[in-house]
């Protein structure tokens, strides 16, 4: 059945520069991202009607984070600001909230804020126990990292791959990272393929996401009427969907609670499939229409599994898809043209979803310069949180109004 929602247009977006000093408070990076984003528009602060903010630790420790952020940005008193704590794809959930506020027709201008600040936890490693906090009773000291390695090993074992797909993936991402001015790796030397394909701890690190430190993003979404009123040329519309898996990793295996998840274990991503199915329907596209895919790739195999989940290649074929060069420019589906996790690091809620979305917008706007996918009309951005227990998939379309 056709659901009646309004179209939602991305008006502007911004991510903070890397390299904040350690004494930077979270309010400072929040303000920086917001002003950078608002400055690209003709809107004023008073025009923001609603918003949502994602910030893992503060959402846990400060009950009224929405108010804290609205106050810090000087937003109007009537502006609602809902806090989200949804692990690394919290940014996607904040977008999901604001998208619905606008799609419902109640509001015309909404703000999506995300932030990750080096307060207590400086790196993804130190954050590990928090990521599993929701089910800590039974997790007994396991982290994203353990999950991610078990998952990659199982995928390799199940579908018969060595490390080369991951090495190839990271090589392409390293190349893209050198073409992306905002990337951590920008301007650095390119690692050799021998380094990237080494079967060792160093090799694993070379193939994994880097760290970035304090990061905030801001995105302003508007309704289709507001976009017309503002006279936006070539508007980018967005669609977003969400699905989850049980937070306890053991329950990822042949999960009996949902018939569509029964055939799968951690070597596949059924939540991405579910979310993708819904968002493709909303956006009226098929996987073949996707010109550029931006996926959450803290390791190469994770990105490969995401491509399979998005339907861009068949399940189990992701490794061969990558080895055939299909994720590079000129391939069937250029992927992570900003360099993904290698370029932007694992900032968790800070920007793990947003960098993917922003790169998608740049590609559709034709502003991706050296890494531009020619004639890109449809981009898909994806991120997950807490060992793939929740997945966000977003579709961005050009010329959709």
């Amino acid at each position, binding site marked *: 059945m056709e659901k009646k929602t309004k179209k939602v247009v991305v008006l502007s977006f911004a991510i903070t520069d890397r390299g904040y000093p350690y004494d930077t408070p979270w309010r400072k990076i929040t303000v920086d991202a917001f002003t950078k984003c608002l400055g690209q528009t003709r809107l004023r602060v008073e025009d923001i009607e609603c918003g949502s903010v994602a910030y893992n630790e503060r959402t846990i420790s400060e009950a009224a984070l929405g108010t804290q952020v609205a106050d810090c940005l000087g937003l109007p008193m009537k502006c609602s600001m809902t806090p989200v704590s949804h692990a690394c794809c919290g940014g996607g959930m904040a977008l999901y909230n604001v998208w619905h506020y606008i799609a419902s027709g109640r509001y015309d201008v909404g703000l999506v804020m995300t932030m990750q600040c080096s307060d*207590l*936890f*400086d*790196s993804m*490693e*130190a954050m590990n126990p928090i990521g599993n906090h929701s089910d800590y009773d039974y997790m007994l000291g396991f982290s994203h990292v353990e999950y991610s390695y078990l998952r990659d090993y199982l995928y390799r074992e199940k579908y018969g791959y060595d490390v080369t797909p991951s090495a190839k993936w990271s090589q392409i991402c390293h190349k893209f990272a050198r073409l992306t001015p905002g990337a951590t790796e920008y301007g650095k030397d390119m690692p050799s393929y021998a380094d990237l394909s080494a079967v060792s701890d160093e090799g694993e690190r070379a193939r994994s996401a880097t760290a970035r430190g304090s990061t905030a993003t801001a995105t302003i979404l508007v309704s289709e009427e507001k976009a017309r009123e503002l006279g936006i040329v070539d508007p980018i519309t967005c669609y977003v969907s969400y699905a989850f898996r049980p937070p306890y990793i053991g329950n990822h295996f042949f999960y009996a609670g949902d018939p569509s998840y029964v055939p799968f274990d951690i070597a596949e991503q059924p939540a991405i499939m579910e979310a993708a199915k819904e968002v493709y329907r909303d956006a009226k596209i098929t996987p073949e229409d996707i010109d550029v895919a931006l996926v959450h790739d803290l390791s190469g195999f994770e990105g490969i599994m995401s491509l399979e989940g998005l339907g861009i290649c068949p399940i189990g074929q992701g490794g061969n898809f990558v080895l055939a060069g299909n994720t590079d420019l000129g391939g069937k589906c250029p992927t992570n043209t900003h360099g993904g996790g290698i370029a932007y690091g694992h900032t968790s809620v800070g920007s793990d979803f947003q960098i993917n979305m922003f790169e998608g917008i740049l590609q559709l706007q034709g502003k991706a310069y050296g890494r531009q996918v020619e004639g890109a009309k449809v981009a898909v951005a994806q991120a997950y949180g807490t060992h793939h227990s929740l997945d966000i998939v977003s579709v961005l379309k050009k010329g959709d109004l």
Partner: protein
Amino acid sequence: MSGIIAYGVSIPKYRVDANEIWDVWKNVSKEILQKMGMKERTVTGPDEDPITLGAESARRCLKQAGISEKDVDGLIFASETNPYATKAAATVLQDILGLKKTCFVTDVQNSHRSGFDAIRIAKSLIDSGTCRKVLVIAADCLNQYISPGHVYEYAAAAGSCSLLLGTEGVIAEIDDMRFASEDKPNWYRLTGERFLQLGAGFVGYISNWGLMDSLKVSWADFAKANGVAPEDYEFIALPQGTVVQSFMSSGAIKCDPYSAIPYVISESTGDMGSATVLVSLCNILDLIDDGDKKILAVGYGWGDGSAVMGLTTTPAIGSVENRPVVIPLLENKEMLPYAKVLKYEKKIDRNTKGLSSYY
């Protein structure tokens, strides 16, 4: 008559070579080290303590007995290195094993003799009809409570032994138990202190004055009451914190040391506290297939006194499956370097206020 229905043992996998410790400290002549028969000892992993060792031996014991955990109506945990100073560790074990809530559960703490005391209490509970099946878990991690550089570091080790006592399906009947007690503070640790203290040195007769004096009294009482002599016992398990201690004990009760030496295990495990003699007893039970074999088990708790227990096997012992229990555990080992031993036994001071593993 009441007696042992089943037994289980658990010994940590890690070991340290006495020479490895000696290379670092050289605090005793190597000759004495060899004379005392200290070759290697067990080391607990960073995640092990008397409760985890006790849980493992108890599970093995219940498995050997082949009974439901709901049939156990008594649990006595015997240890001198209980992690809890106030509450009972036995209740943790009760939950781990899934025993019923109406089970009688308590701790016994009486130095190395704790295990014998627990057996005495369990036997009384059974003989009086209060309980039908009582699980005695003796477990100690002396190794975690001996300071680095202390001479007893060569011997202090960890291990556990569980015995299920009752009247049905008994494999070894307990004929009698006799005790002798006196306060002889040659081994103690005060509340709040980290490490055990030997009150009377380590080498020679002086360190074992309690052992020699006390054993004579309890043995005399036992021999008189039961009309027995040491020669009546084919198998003897003696106190064996170090191997030389079992020789001294044999002198005290005037038995042939060679009826005890084959069953001494502390050469390869070290001193496992309250579990040591009981593991040696299990080692003896492993070897017996017939009824009417006489076993003598002698326990000594430094600072507390001694215990003597006489057992007679029943024909049921021949049908116990999955034996031997002790020897495979002695053989399953991994040697550790001394630095790692110190880390695993938590003898290296660390920052307790860290935000994460890094800071």
